[in-house]
């Protein structure tokens, strides 16, 4: 009894699994009821409702757009996806042209951004060391924070002029590829500088530069998680750095590459202001990416949101809904790929 006191209050006896406590009769299973303190209950309720509110806001985006889009969708039906013209007043409207333009711009953006992002992220994770590495990570993060309107200004007032000779060169020498040809209605090649302005190509380059930082940071994180043991093993077997990258870093970072590319794609599909500032809107499918004129869903919305009639707005909402659903699917796929690639691939060091 005295010993108990000196030990500081209660004694606990530890039973091991194979040691049956014979002195005590087997006690009935105790019912463990965690009782929350009041502050805990409040905290739980508040945080639960905050989570619920966040989800509610996010879900109501979809719900509101669907409700508003309803009347236009009833009129247009499935034709909405296949009609190129956009004149809700006459009942002839569809997003075939703008969706095509959106996808074109996004594909060009990916052609620009993926090699850049892949190279930069490998450079940061594998080649650079010490302070230079920290600086370049900061610089890439900073680039992600540059407003899109600033990129748009740069594209409109600088890039456009300096890229036109390149466009002309491509169309002259690679004009036999249908995408790169720039022809008028009769099929004659156009070489006038004005034929190359405001094209999907220029918009795609600007959007591509805008999404590089997103892709770079995701790929870099994936590459940095490649296990150190395998890296050292590759070096120990006499591999060069590039050999190590192809044998270890790229296979381990595959999920990051795919996921990062898709997240960037989602961003590129939704980009509005830079595209709107650069492109000259047309409502027809334009296969010639170097030729002036193109469109995107978001640019269409920014262009026409001021329309007075309820029905025209409803049609715009429908276009927004389609854009929303496409980016949603891409983001879901991307984040699940990134999340799956993270599990179990980490280095233990």
């Amino acid at each position, binding site marked *: 009894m005295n010993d108990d006191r000196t030990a500081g209050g209660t004694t606990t006896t530890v039973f091991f699994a194979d040691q049956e406590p014979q002195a005590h009769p087997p006690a009935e299973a105790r019912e463990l009821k965690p009782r929350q303190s009041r502050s805990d209950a409040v905290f739980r309720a508040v945080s639960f409702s905050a989570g619920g509110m966040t989800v509610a806001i996010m879900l109501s985006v979809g719900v509101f*757009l669907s409700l508003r889009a309803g009347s236009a969708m009833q009129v247009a039906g499935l034709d909405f996806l296949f009609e190129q013209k956009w004149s809700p007043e006459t009942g002839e409207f569809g997003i075939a042209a703008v969706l095509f333009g959106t996808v074109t711009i996004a594909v060009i953006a990916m052609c620009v951004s993926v090699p850049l992002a892949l190279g930069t992220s490998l450079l940061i994770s594998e080649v650079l060391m010490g302070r230079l590495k920290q600086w370049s990570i900061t610089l890439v993060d900073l680039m992600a924070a540059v407003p899109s309107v600033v990129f748009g200004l740069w594209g409109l007032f600088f890039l456009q002029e300096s890229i036109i000779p390149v466009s002309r060169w491509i169309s002259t020498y690679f004009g036999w590829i249908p995408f790169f040809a720039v022809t008028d209605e009769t099929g004659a090649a156009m070489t006038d500088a004005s034929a190359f302005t405001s094209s999907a190509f220029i918009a795609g380059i600007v959007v591509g530069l805008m999404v590089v930082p997103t892709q770079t940071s995701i790929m870099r994180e994936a590459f940095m998680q490649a296990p150190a043991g395998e890296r050292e093993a590759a070096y120990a077997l006499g591999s*060069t750095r590039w050999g190590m990258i192809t044998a270890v870093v790229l296979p381990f970072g595959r999920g990051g590459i795919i996921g990062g590319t898709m997240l960037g794609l989602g961003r590129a599909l939704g980009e509005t202001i830079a595209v709107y500032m650069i492109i000259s809107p047309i409502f027809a499918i334009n296969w010639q990416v170097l030729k002036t004129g193109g469109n995107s869903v978001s640019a269409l919305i920014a262009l026409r949101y001021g329309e007075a009639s309820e029905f025209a707005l409803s049609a715009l909402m429908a276009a*927004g809904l389609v854009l929303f659903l496409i980016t949603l699917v891409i983001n879901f796929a991307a984040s699940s790929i990134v999340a799956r690639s993270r599990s179990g691939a980490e280095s233990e060091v």
Partner: protein
Amino acid sequence: MSLTTFEPALAGEQETEPRAAVRTSLPVREGIEIGPRRRIRSARLDDRYALFGAGAAALAIAALLFGWIAPLSGVVGFFVVAFLAFVAIYALLVSSTGDGREVTDRVMTVMLASAGVILCGALIFVVVFTLLRGLPALVHANFFFQDMEFAGPLDGLDLGGVAHAIVGTLIQIGIALAISIPLGIVTALFLNEVGGRFARFVRTIVDAMTALPSIVAGLFIYSAIILGLGLQRSGFAAALAITVMMLPIIVRASDVVLRLVAGNLREASYALGASRWRTVWHVVLPTARSGLVTAVILGTARGIGETSPVLLTSGVTNVMNTNPFEGPMISLPLQVFTFVGSPEPNMIARGFGTAAVLLLLVLALFAIARVIGGRGPADQSPRSQRRVRAASVRDVERMDAASARREASAQPQEEPQ
């Protein structure tokens, strides 16, 4: 301080159970000759020669082609030709000393480095281009202190400014932060500290929403607030649209930061009998404070530059408006967009000036975020370390006093036994 109070207890334990007398000792350094530190990362001399030689040769070839031989022209073309020539000559030079594998390695390293250079160059170029073109407008002080009420498109740059847009941006981002900081951080706490199936669902939704197209956010607020409730376009509606954009960013960044809080800190708090809320308030949040501030600032930097949601919801005005609930209220990105829509050179110069102000604002926010966020979780500033130490000393004093009181009250009871 708090550690020193534990030392007597540890010493007492050692007396009761004597351990084997194994002590760590530093190796004797005397007599060992330490040579100069070898640099293992420096390049060999012939590597440098190859690099410089290839560079010089490439420039020479490009200059020759563009100047005399081939009918080529254009800055972009010059750089492309020079780059291709550089890669080819460099590969040739490396192959004179190394095997094919080494050539591939070197060429790929050059490719990676050039990707980085292109990216950094593009960023620096975009920033410098905007600042330079904006300089004519920025040098006039009235640009920061006047609005555009009395300045027409043809007026010089010494009349009118963007004070109304600066004020509008600050008001809108202030409202957006007032909503999204509490909601975002509490949601992130919910994801990390409460958990469960619903939390996983919330995390999935938030993840998917981080790349919500900004125009869709604007369209949502437009359809819900302006068409649905019949309100006018106003600063408040714009702030709500920015909130919808910023909320997922803040939740996700805070979620990442909170996940970095070491689990054993939480467990230590629970083991001391703290409730969940006390653990969050006294352990998790202070530990993650700098990271949370960084998350919020980066979210702000993103929200401040959003144009398209504001385009649909705030309306355009040339007049100062400080009431977010009534009348249109313009913000900096939208003002840029409006200015450059005009064909007048002065308006375009104003547009660049406004973009430069916006860019400087974002850069300042980013710099602040880096200064604060340079610390990892649980890495405290000297001031907060002193504060924690003082609190810990107070705790020890309080506990000592309490135990002395307890002993004093226990003493009379034991004497009768």
